[in-house]
């Protein structure tokens, strides 16, 4: 038999021939003869309209929820139910029609062949790689039975632990905490690995962490980017910095590493890591001595300035500042004086600087410098770090009551992470909090009851937490590890059950930023692929099964529609703040919170109501009321190792996509040429980087972007590569964090290593 290719292609591709073909098909009775399988006979062939395919795009509103400063507002183009491309929403002046390379790859992420597709169970034990498909019902049955069995045996559900962090910052994603709230008192890995020392510092100084609108930076006259690299990690902020620079502002980057942002600045100052606080104290002293400080503002709005000044007078010697920071004194003076003379001037502090054993105290010292210069509470000024002031949602998905008779923890209570979780006022119990930054050892050491079940959501524990060898041990001793994710990563490898999770394009949500002031609706743009489900749907299914097995054992709704849950998150306060009457208005595009200058009214949320140079709380918690100089951790090996974010990933997200792998396929250790020469390492050599924690084999790249004495390796998970920089990082804490987020941060950048050519 023969066939004609042209003939068929003309039928398929040409509307009119297709029309007559379909007409004939319907008339010929073929349809009634189809034997039936997955594909069904199409009884509704509409031959009246020539079939042209669904050529036009439908558009949807989405947001990028992946823990990036920029939290882009996205417009998604869908044709015949398939995402075709996305673009940054033009309505948001911040996103302004563009996304970054990661965001632009979303179609490839959603349709990645590597996505988890079905719920699966590892049948040969954790790490065996022997996986079996299970239905959602089976998965929920296994988990629900385990939870109820634990509750029966332990008399409490404190043996069930949740670890969740930054894979999705959509508001309804707090429903995962809600799911754990709804089964009883449980164990939470609390705190944040990201920004706690700085949060504490700003709360001590100003009673809040609240930054000016980044869009104002276009009108700043002097900008210091201190330990932050927006050219890589907040690209949308760069346009304001460029605009300011074009208008004559000076832009200075202070960083131990010559970053992409440094290459765009007016001046780059290479500082010795961990000495930033001292530099800030020195600069404050310089401007006070030059009488360039804002005495009027200080008198009206601050507490403890006198003590602070006395400390600077007595303890801060400028020669020492220069020697310790590695910056010539003349340069420090010029920087401090020109900053003080330029009004408004602002400092943006990144999250890297606070990842030292003296991180919180360094942020306090910089806050103090900005305050002394009179730039707090001013348009286009401010000590910028981040904010949660547009996050006043209902947290409806989070706020679930405990089941009747729940028994919990009675030990000392700790704080609970970024978003406070409601404590039942009538109860004598709380959840049990373990330090997220010491996950491995906390899981191993938790007793009475010991942790038996771990639920991992929005998080790749093995890429984000420390001490990998201990982590493997911790996972192995757990009865059941459930990993809900979009990709099979290092953590999923050590799970018993993996659950495939929807992307933001497959569910409803709402997003705001911890940096800019925009609010974005996230609509469901496509059907969930394969058998993926949203975290909220998973919670509802678990609730249903638990209640079937034991009525009243879970208070989470037993069926949930992500849209309905999203709607519940809004309240009059949010509408008022963003100037809208209904969430539906967000379908027209994102909206921005009404203009506000933090602390412009001189009101601070500190105990004194003022900016506190002298903080009793700081004295009580951290032993020093003033922002003083605290020496950084002493080296315990030859080279300091920093592990910043790269521009191709957000922690471990995105790096596994082909576009990123094309440009950044493998990890490197970046070494200063002088250090490399001393160790006889050449570009491209494989070296062993090692310390007391572990050893990594990785190729060398030589660059004087990093200082002699320092090596740099990006933090992230590389697909099909066992590299994980956290193998070299111990979980030593930074000085602050326990005040507001429940646990101190990790002094990631106070890691020391040695290396040799292999």
């Amino acid at each position: 038999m023969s066939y004609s290719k042209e003939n068929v292609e003309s039928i398929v591709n040409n509307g009119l021939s297709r029309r007559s073909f379909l007409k004939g098909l319907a008339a010929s009775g073929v349809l009634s003869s189809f034997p039936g399988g997955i594909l069904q006979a199409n009884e509704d062939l509409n031959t009246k309209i020539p079939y042209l395919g669904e050529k036009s795009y439908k558009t949807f509103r989405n947001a990028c929820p992946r823990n990036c400063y920029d939290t882009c507002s996205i417009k998604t183009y869908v044709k015949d139910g398939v995402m075709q491309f996305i673009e940054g929403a033009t309505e948001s002046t911040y996103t302004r029609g563009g996304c970054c390379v990661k965001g632009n790859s979303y179609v490839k992420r959603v349709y990645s062949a590597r996505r988890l597709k079905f719920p699966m169970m590892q049948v040969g034990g954790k790490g065996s790689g022997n996986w079996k498909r299970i239905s959602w019902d089976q998965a929920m049955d296994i988990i629900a039975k385990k939870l109820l069995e634990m509750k029966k045996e332990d008399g409490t559900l404190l043996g069930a632990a949740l670890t969740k962090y930054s894979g999705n910052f959509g508001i309804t994603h707090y429903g995962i905490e809600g799911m754990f709230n709804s089964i009883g008192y449980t164990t939470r890995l609390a705190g944040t690995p990201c920004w706690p020392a700085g949060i504490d510092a700003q709360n001590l100084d100003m009673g809040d962490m609240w930054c000016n609108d980044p869009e104002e930076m276009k009108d700043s006259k002097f900008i210091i980017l201190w330990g932050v690299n927006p050219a890589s990690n907040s690209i949308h902020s760069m346009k304001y910095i460029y605009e300011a620079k074009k208008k004559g502002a000076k832009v200075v980057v202070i960083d131990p590493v010559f970053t992409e942002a440094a290459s765009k600045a007016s001046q780059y100052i290479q500082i010795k890591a961990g000495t930033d606080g001292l530099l800030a104290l020195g600069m404050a002293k310089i401007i006070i001595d030059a009488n360039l400080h804002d005495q009027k503002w200080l008198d009206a709005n601050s507490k403890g300035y006198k003590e602070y000044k006395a400390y600077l007078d007595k303890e801060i010697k400028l020669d020492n500042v220069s020697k310790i920071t590695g910056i010539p004194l003349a340069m420090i003076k010029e920087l401090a004086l020109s900053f003080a003379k330029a009004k408004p001037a602002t400092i943006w502090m990144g999250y890297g600087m606070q990842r030292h054993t003296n991180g919180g105290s360094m942020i306090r010292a910089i806050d103090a410098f900005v305050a002394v210069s009179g730039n707090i509470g001013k348009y286009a000024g401010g000590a910028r770090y981040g904010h949660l002031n547009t996050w006043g949602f209902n947290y409806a998905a989070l706020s679930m009551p405990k089941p009747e008779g729940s028994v919990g923890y009675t030990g000392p209570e700790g704080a609970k992470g970024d978003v406070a979780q409601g404590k039942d006022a009538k109860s004598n119990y709380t959840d049990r909090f373990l330090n997220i930054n010491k996950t491995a050892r906390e899981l191993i050491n938790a007793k009475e009851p010991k942790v038996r079940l771990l639920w991992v959501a929005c998080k790749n524990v093995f890429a984000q937490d420390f001490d990998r060898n201990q982590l493997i041990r911790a996972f192995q001793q757990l009865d059941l590890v459930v990993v809900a994710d979009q990709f099979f990563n290092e953590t999923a490898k050590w799970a018993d059950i993996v659950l495939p999770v929807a992307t933001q394009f497959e569910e409803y949500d709402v997003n705001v930023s911890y940096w800019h002031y925009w609010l974005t609706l996230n609509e469901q743009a496509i059907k969930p692929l394969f058998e993926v489900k949203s975290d909220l749907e998973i919670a509802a299914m678990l609730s249903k099964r638990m209640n079937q097995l034991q009525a009243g054992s879970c208070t989470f709704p037993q069926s949930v529609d992500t849209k309905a849950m999203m709607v519940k998150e809004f309240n009059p306060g949010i509408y008022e703040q963003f100037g809208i009457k209904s969430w539906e208005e967000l379908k027209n595009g994102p909206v921005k919170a009404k203009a506000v200058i933090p602390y412009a009214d001189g009101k601070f949320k500190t105990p004194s109501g003022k900016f506190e140079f002298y903080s009793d709380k700081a004295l009580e918690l951290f032993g020093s009321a003033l922002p003083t100089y605290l020496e950084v951790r002493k080296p315990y090996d030859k080279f300091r190792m920093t592990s910043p974010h790269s521009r191709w990933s957000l922690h471990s997200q995105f790096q596994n996509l082909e576009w990123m792998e094309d440009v950044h396929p493998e990890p490197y250790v970046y070494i200063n040429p002088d250090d490399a020469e001393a160790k006889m390492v050449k570009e491209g050599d494989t070296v062993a980087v090692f310390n007391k924690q572990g050893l990594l084999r990785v190729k060398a790249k030589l660059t004087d972007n990093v200082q002699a004495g320092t090596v740099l390796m990006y933090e992230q998970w590389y697909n099909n590569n066992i590299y994980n920089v956290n193998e070299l990082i111990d979980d030593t804490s930074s000085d602050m964090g326990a005040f507001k987020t429940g646990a101190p941060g990790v002094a990631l950048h106070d890691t020391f290593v040695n290396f040799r050519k292999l």
Partner: protein
Amino acid sequence: MQTIQPQDRSRLDELKHLRDIFNAQNSKELKIAFGALHSCLEISEEDLEVQFNRYFVGPMEPIADPFASIYIDDPDVVMSKSTLHVRELYETMGFTNPLKNIIPDDHLGVELDAYYQLLYLEEAKGITYLSDLRHYFLHEHLSLWVPRFIARALEHSEHDSKAMTFILLQLKSLLIRETTTQGVTA
């Protein structure tokens, strides 16, 4: 109604069993479809599924993804150009896909289903209305990628699974038979 010849019956059956293997949702369905292929291999339900998942499903990166787009358009993504091309072909063939936008239309199991149904119309029902489309589908689509899929999966003999090799060889011989028993003229 025409009488179906025994050789056509086995041709159809084999196609159906292979289809069912790739569409199985659990070990039981997989084992039944595998058993129906008359393999004399002894293998437990669980082992069969574990091996099948390692080759074709995941959750880790499978040895060979069973989607046409991976071999024709882009090795990393599904739902791309060829998926939508197959979608249009199905629509022209008179099929409606209840799993549209859930399972990519060019999943091997779905494609084998389409091919099976078209062949059934011809061989069991004597309806040749769609045979041009079936040949087009076979020669211009299935033949473009299924051999590459088979080759990739067979290449990884370090994972040496007799059961998977058997499935792949059955698929290979079916494809050879289908493409060679029917002449092609442009």
